[in-house]
């Protein structure tokens, strides 16, 4: 019976072509608008490191005080003094500090034009902490951190540019006039949003080129290519005075496996801030935070408001399209009241009529879904018109989106058809037959 009803449904698509086309178009546009904005929202609100997001934490220490901090919240990064103190205390299983770099490289030897390369100064723990996948070699050891080794990890893309993709472990590269030995090449790795560096970026940026030891970068006095946020009076000239200043620019991350470790680390942070207060460095009570990846993403408002608004608008649009569909289905079904009356008189139960019209609605929904899919496929590349290019690029039409588009279209139309199909099933056979 299902197959027969389905066949009837497809046949009736042709019966009131204008009315049917209108429903299909409304569902198509509604579902496409929802899917395009959803694909963007899904991309920007995703968890960049799902299996470890609850074990990675970024500690914050208020070094600015209640009158200069961010409305009660501590600064979003650490100054050099606090950052180094946390590293030295070593209260976490793994820990790293990081800041962004932008260095020049001569890809084709000294005769070529220099090119800019983007990287990070990090500790060796960075790679296992953030589960960076390696193509060749590996990250560097704690000893390299301590000995301020001139080592470097390249990204797959950068290795392609410099060494044509060959295993470059052991070879040397020159960045800003300093030589570094390659110890590893990562596989393509660009978590989005880039949760570990939200202090310096919106979270949606191109892949990194290289990673250097933090200790080495400091030795060479390489400046941060990112933000530097200061409070108080700034009368410094030169690197050392700047390191001691109230400027925050270092992002710390720690890995804590259990709730006990988290509690312990929180206690340590409180204790550290209290010590600073006792020592007279802070003139205020401890104000510290320890946020995990998910909390940090929320705190930094990674999801652009535009993405949220456009998703809501698209869903409201879809809802109106469905209201429209309810009305049109009602018209389409009740137009055939006579036919329903005949079927009922010949013995069809209300339940059968109900099923038949629901299936008919599902065919409309399916047609709308196919149209929606075409519109989504056309609209996803056009997302660049609506969102910033870095974000628009994240929207992708993959298999799950195709399945979602079709099933949302069919299910939503079915939901819309409950009332019209019920009305169709309520048709009184006697009344219909009499009046005709």
């Amino acid at each position, binding site marked *: 019976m299902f197959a027969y009803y389905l066949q009837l449904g497809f046949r009736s698509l042709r019966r009131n072509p204008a009315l049917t086309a209108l429903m299909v*178009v409304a569902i198509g546009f509604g579902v496409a608008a929802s899917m395009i904005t959803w694909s963007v929202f899904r991309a920007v609100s995703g968890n960049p490191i799902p299996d470890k997001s609850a074990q990675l934490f970024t500690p914050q220490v208020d070094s600015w005080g209640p009158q200069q901090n961010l409305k009660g919240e501590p600064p979003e990064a650490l100054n050099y003094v606090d950052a180094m103190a946390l590293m030295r205390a070593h209260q976490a299983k793994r820990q790293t500090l990081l800041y962004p770099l932008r260095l020049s490289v001569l890809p084709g030897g000294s005769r070529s034009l*220099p090119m800019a390369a983007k990287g990070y100064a990090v500790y060796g723990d960075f790679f296992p902490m953030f589960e960076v996948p390696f193509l060749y070699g590996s990250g560097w050891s704690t000893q390299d951190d301590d000995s301020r080794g001139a080592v470097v990890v390249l990204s797959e893309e950068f290795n392609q540019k410099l060494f044509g993709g060959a295993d470059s472990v052991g070879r040397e590269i020159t960045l800003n006039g300093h030589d570094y030995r390659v110890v590893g090449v990562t596989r393509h790795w660009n978590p989005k949003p880039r949760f570990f560096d939200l202090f310096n970026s919106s979270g949606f940026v191109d892949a990194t080129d290289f990673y250097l030891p933090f200790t080495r970068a400091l030795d060479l006095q390489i400046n941060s290519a990112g933000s530097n946020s200061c409070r108080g009076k*700034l009368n410094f000239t030169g*690197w050392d005075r700047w390191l001691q200043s109230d400027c925050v620019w270092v992002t710390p991350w720690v890995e804590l496996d259990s709730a006990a470790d988290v509690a312990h680390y929180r206690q340590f942070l409180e204790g550290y801030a209290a010590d600073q207060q006792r020592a007279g460095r802070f003139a205020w009570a401890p104000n510290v935070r320890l946020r995990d990846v998910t909390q940090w993403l929320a705190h930094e408002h990674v999801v652009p408001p535009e993405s949220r608004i456009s998703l809501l608008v698209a869903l409201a649009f879809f*809802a109106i*399209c469905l209201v429209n569909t309810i009305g049109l289905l*009602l018209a389409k079904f009740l*137009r055939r009241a006579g036919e329903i009356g005949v079927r009922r008189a010949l013995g069809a139960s209300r339940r059968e009529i109900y099923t038949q019209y629901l299936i008919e609605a599902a065919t409309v929904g399916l047609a709308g879904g196919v149209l929606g899919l075409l519109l989504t496929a056309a609209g996803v590349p056009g997302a660049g018109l609506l969102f910033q290019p870095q974000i628009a690029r994240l929207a992708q039409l993959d298999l799950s989106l195709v399945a979602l588009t079709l099933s949302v279209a069919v299910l939503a139309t079915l939901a819309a058809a409950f009332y019209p199909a019920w009305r169709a099933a309520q048709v009184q056979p006697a009344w219909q037959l009499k009046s005709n």
Partner: protein
Amino acid sequence: MQIRPILAALKHHKAGTALIALQIALTLAIVCNALFIIQQRLAHLSEPSGVDEANLFVVNNEWAGQMSTAQLNAQIQTDLAALRQLPSVRDAAPSSSYPLSGFGDDIPANLTPDQLQWTADPAMYASDEHLIDTLGLKLIAGRNFRADEIGRMGVRDFTAPPAVIVTKALADRLFPHGAALGKPIYLMSSTPSTIIGIVDRLQRQSVDTWTKAYAYQAMLWPTRPTHPQGLFYVVRARPGQLAAAMREAPKALYAQSRMRIIDPKNGLLSFAQVRQRIYDSDRGMAILMGIVSAVLLVITAAGIVGLTSFWVAQRRKQIGVRRALGARQRDILSYFMTENLLISLMGVVAGAVVAIALNLWMVTQFEMARLSLAYVAIGVLTLLALGQGAVLAPALRASRVPPVEATRSV
């Protein structure tokens, strides 16, 4: 017009009536808010920057290799001399950032040296005495920097300059009672900086929502940005020669020294591109809201046509009877028009309430402004007109039903 029989007839079509009214209500709520958002975004993206946008471009010049502050200072002056000599260039200036660049420094400005909470948080452009002419700013009080006042700012140096030029917006913010010229201000320093000039209008680097309260508050520092990372060269082409100047400038710079990076993607931007980049999310929202509103209105209109056509088909016989009893075509037409007007009125009343509620909710969620009632009024009129327009075709068809229809069965 006989309203009572129409109301009586509508009682037989409760579901259809409710659905059309609901659709009109929701459409009104969305369209009002969408039009309001479009207007807000368009207003935002057409705010003037205060600079001569038609003739400006920016070179993002990054240094490659190691140079001392003195070397950088000399190289920058050589570069600028080369740029200023180009026949297509009117003037050029070094800068730490530029209006609408999206990033750059802001330095809290205070009236007393020991203030903890700042008086203003202006954007800071570190440049030389050419910036005012290069950007095409209007000096409305005081004087420009002199060449001998220009200091330099090396790596991690911070020294507040003895003299600054501020925008009128910043001057008004710092000294609401006027007379900012010649006054000292404190820029994260215990030594004062004197306001020596005031320029008319100059936008900040960022136009994000949070900067709204600080719009146009900016200041110029007489400081050549000798940061080892690099700097921006802001170049003003002679009228009509922007393309030529943009072609020649990188060549002229590379001829001075090859140890620099002008990124192929972001290294060279005309101001039109700068403006396009900074406002892309505003433009995107306006486009999205425009598309949604247009499609929504079409679908609602089509929905009304569809349901009314169904009603007309259902009532052919009754129409025939009425015609046979003496009703004119005009009476049938006005019956359906009035019926639609009644349903639409129910819809727009509910819709206006939903529109305002939706806006109030968005105000709390998305830092949006309050919906002006003019938009609700425009939306109400649009939807009433849309309803009448949509019902016209089926109503005309109804009016042409011949009286003889009354005698036909089926």
